[in-house]
């Protein structure tokens, strides 16, 4: 028998600390608009959510001073950021790097669970459905963001790649090179 552990980076304070003061309402509105674009471009994600396409999820990046309430809304999602405790049918908690790694397919959800980097509470079925739906969607949040930046796409892309290298956060989908 052999043992080892997963190494998940923590969000640098330089990124996390300013979020203590940032007004959350406009940020929530922006993320809601962003998530609706993704919902439109990835309808399969909602098909896979099935019975849980209207289930509220609490996403808790444990190294950030806020919590995300995601309401999938049957394909018309709403994202609310809050600094107060919030209720949802299921809670998924872990460092921002783990959550972004799950979204981009850089980390395996079960491995993060085994290593205790990820905690799920509440409706386990809903959490599984969300994880599996997102994994199948092959999301790349940077690519979605770059679609909004027009002529600034190239410099924004370079900045995101630099940020990814410096922080260890999965901000893009890893390449799957052919065998």
């Amino acid at each position, binding site marked *: 028998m052999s043992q080892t552990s997963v190494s998940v980076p923590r969000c640098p304070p330089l990124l996390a600390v300013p979020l203590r003061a940032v007004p959350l309402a406009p940020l929530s509105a922006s993320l809601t608009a962003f998530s609706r674009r993704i919902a439109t471009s990835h309808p399969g994600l909602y098909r896979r959510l099935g019975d849980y396409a209207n289930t509220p999820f609490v996403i808790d990046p444990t190294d950030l001073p806020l919590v995300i309430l995601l309401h999938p809304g049957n394909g018309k999602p709403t994202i609310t950021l809050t600094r107060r405790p919030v209720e949802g049918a299921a809670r998924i908690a872990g460092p921002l790097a783990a959550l972004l790694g799950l979204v981009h397919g850089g980390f395996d959800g079960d491995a993060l669970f085994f290593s205790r980097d990820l*905690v799920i*509470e509440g409706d386990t079925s809903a959490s599984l459905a969300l994880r599996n739906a997102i994994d199948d969607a092959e999301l790349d949040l940077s690519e979605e963001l770059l679609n909004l930046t027009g002529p600034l796409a190239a410099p924004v892309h370079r900045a995101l790649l630099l940020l990814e290298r410096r922080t260890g956060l999965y901000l893009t989908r890893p390449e799957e090179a052919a065998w």
Partner: protein
Amino acid sequence: MVMEIVCPAGTPAALRAAVKAGAHTIYCGFADETNARNFPGLNFDRVEMRDSVAFAHQHGSKVLVAINTFPRAGDEAIWHRAVADAESCGADAVILADAGLLDYAARHHPNLRRHLSVQAAAANADMVNFYAETFGVKRVVLPRVLSVPEIAAINAETEVETEVFVFGGLCVMAEGRCSLSSYATGRSPNMNGVCSPASHVEYHDHNGVLDAQLGGYTIHRAQKGDAAPYPTLCKGCFSAGEKTDHLFEDPVSLNAEQLIPQLQKAGVTALKIEGRQRSRSYVTQVVRNFREAVDALEDGRPMPQGMLARLSEGQAMTTGAYKKTWR
């Protein structure tokens, strides 16, 4: 001949990842109770299956469709339809466990290759040969309770191809006959395709101490910093008298990577990776690792040392029954 890597895929994206990572063959299932990984958000609808089979074939990989639960009396048509749809989607074989369904497939879909699922628990040569002679089974997935010499003994007495698990979640029971999940939840891998169904699992984190409950029973408590297992009764930790311990098996995953040369000598055709419930990331890493291993073996190079422990349940690995080191 290179040993065949048989890789899991719970979603079309995972199947594509497996193909790109070098899997010779991928196994998957329809999104219903006909397969033994019937979890929320997983599996393939008919269109996804057809498209995924086409993708795999374009890249030189095969697809096996697992229809490996036991049909419920009165509802056999659901399983019959799955066999017919697997054939029309272009699957290279179906993986079946139930004798009645094997008989149905042999009579109604004679050109569809039939593999025997691990769920049938065929653990000796007589049983393997019975399935081959009676239902035309071409390959048997052997249960994870056999040692390497026992596998060699089976292969010495049969012409049927054998496939063995080399990595992933370790079922320590006689598969297809385990009732632990059913006892606690009323649902089982055998009939419903779910061992420890997520709908009956709850986790509670108390300041870093993680309790896992199945069907209302607390079956494991992980202290702060300890690795967590899957919420299955066979890996549960129980107190009896003054002793608290894992009753059946520690929470570990199988990793028989270093036994591949011995398995080849034992006459094994294919190496199976468990984990249709796992992600694209898992599929990519594990397939690459095992593809490198079998290619090294074929080329006469030393076996690479893998780095797969972090993907393992409880972050710990065992060679399971292959070396018979269990207590």
